[in-house]
């Protein structure tokens, strides 16, 4: 009887995995141009920073031209770093367009969003154009490859970055770290809750 129960439990867990692992709900905005890498190892790196640390500084090229440094926001704005693994992939393509309609939430919490991937500028330019006009800077951590992701400890062994969010306060201190399962989009409400905590 116990064996039967266990068998059913295993069967259930496999089913639940199959169920949750493959759904994306991808937007038609990207037509058939999305490459599906399949299911990847959920997390494949080890964090090099923790909550309470000073956020490692950086300066990266932006798709709008020029470079953007983390330091420019010190004392002025809270900063959210959104690392996504790769352009033209399913979950990543359906993450930033959601952030694009909640500028008011970022503004209300005196925060700026910086989107970062390890792709190069031309790729990021073409990809983000499909999302409509983004209100936040998109930065390329392409060269030296993934150096910023590596400094935060979210560079995977295959050269992609993790799907990770860092919330940094105006003093430059890391207040929240969320390294998500690369195969799933993080819930917006988690980020919003962390932003609201900053201004309290």
């Amino acid at each position, binding site marked *: 009887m116990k064996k039967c129960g266990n068998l*059913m439990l295993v069967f259930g*867990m496999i*089913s639940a995995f*199959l169920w949750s692992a493959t759904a994306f709900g991808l*937007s*038609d905005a990207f037509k058939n141009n999305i490459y599906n890498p399949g299911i990847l190892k959920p997390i494949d790196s080890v964090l090099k920073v923790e909550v309470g640390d000073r956020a490692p500084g950086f300066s990266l090229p932006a798709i709008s031209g020029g470079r953007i440094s983390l330091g420019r926001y010190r004392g002025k704005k809270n900063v959210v770093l959104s690392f996504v693994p790769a352009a033209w992939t399913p979950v990543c393509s*359906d993450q930033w367009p959601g952030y694009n309609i909640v500028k008011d939430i970022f503004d209300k919490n005196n925060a700026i969003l910086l989107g970062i991937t390890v792709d190069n500028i031309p790729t990021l330019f073409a990809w983000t154009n*499909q999302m*409509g006009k983004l209100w936040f800077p998109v930065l390329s951590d392409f060269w030296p490859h993934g150096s910023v992701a590596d400094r935060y400890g979210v560079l995977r062994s295959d050269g992609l970055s993790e799907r990770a969010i860092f919330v940094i306060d105006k003093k430059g201190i890391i207040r929240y770290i969320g390294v998500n399962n690369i195969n799933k989009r993080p819930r*917006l409400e988690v980020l919003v809750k962390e932003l609201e905590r900053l201004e309290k």
Partner: protein
Amino acid sequence: MNNIMKGIPMSVATFIISLALLHCLAFGSKLPPEKGDVLPEIKIPVPVNATDRNYLGLRSIGFFKIPQIKAKVVIIEIFSMYCPHCQREAPEINRLYSIIEGNPDLKDKIKLIGIGAGNSSFEVNVFKEKYNVPFPLIPDVDFSIHKCLGEVRTPYFLGVKINDYGTHQIFYSKLGEFKGAELFLDLMLQLSGLK
């Protein structure tokens, strides 16, 4: 023995849920429903908002099935707050709702409902508030409804005709291509036989 007995209900429940999931995985996951089909067995949470419940003609709480909506035709939009097309088209779909609600011959016959693929309640509400969506939007946070509807890209539209005897039939099943409220409504009226 006690441990075994304790384990049974959870295992049986897991088994039953898994069977339901596997049913969609095996029979309905890779292809969207086609014109002439009936909808797969999907249970949708009844909206918590009384205005939405009244709009759909639902009295109970818990779950409902599309054919239980009090209407002759139900237009289902599979959307996501993360979908740029869904964002762009939202005002035009709101206009479709207004045209229907403003026409005494149509308002009780055609109902709109949105299903947020992979969206939580919070995310669906962000979309609803951002675009002032007047019709019910249902969260599908674990993609369970989306899975049963063939994992379609978004936005995806389904037109369902509800017959007098509780049966129903899909008369429209298409990805995106919302060319404007009037044209779409006219198409729905023609294909459903309401016109």
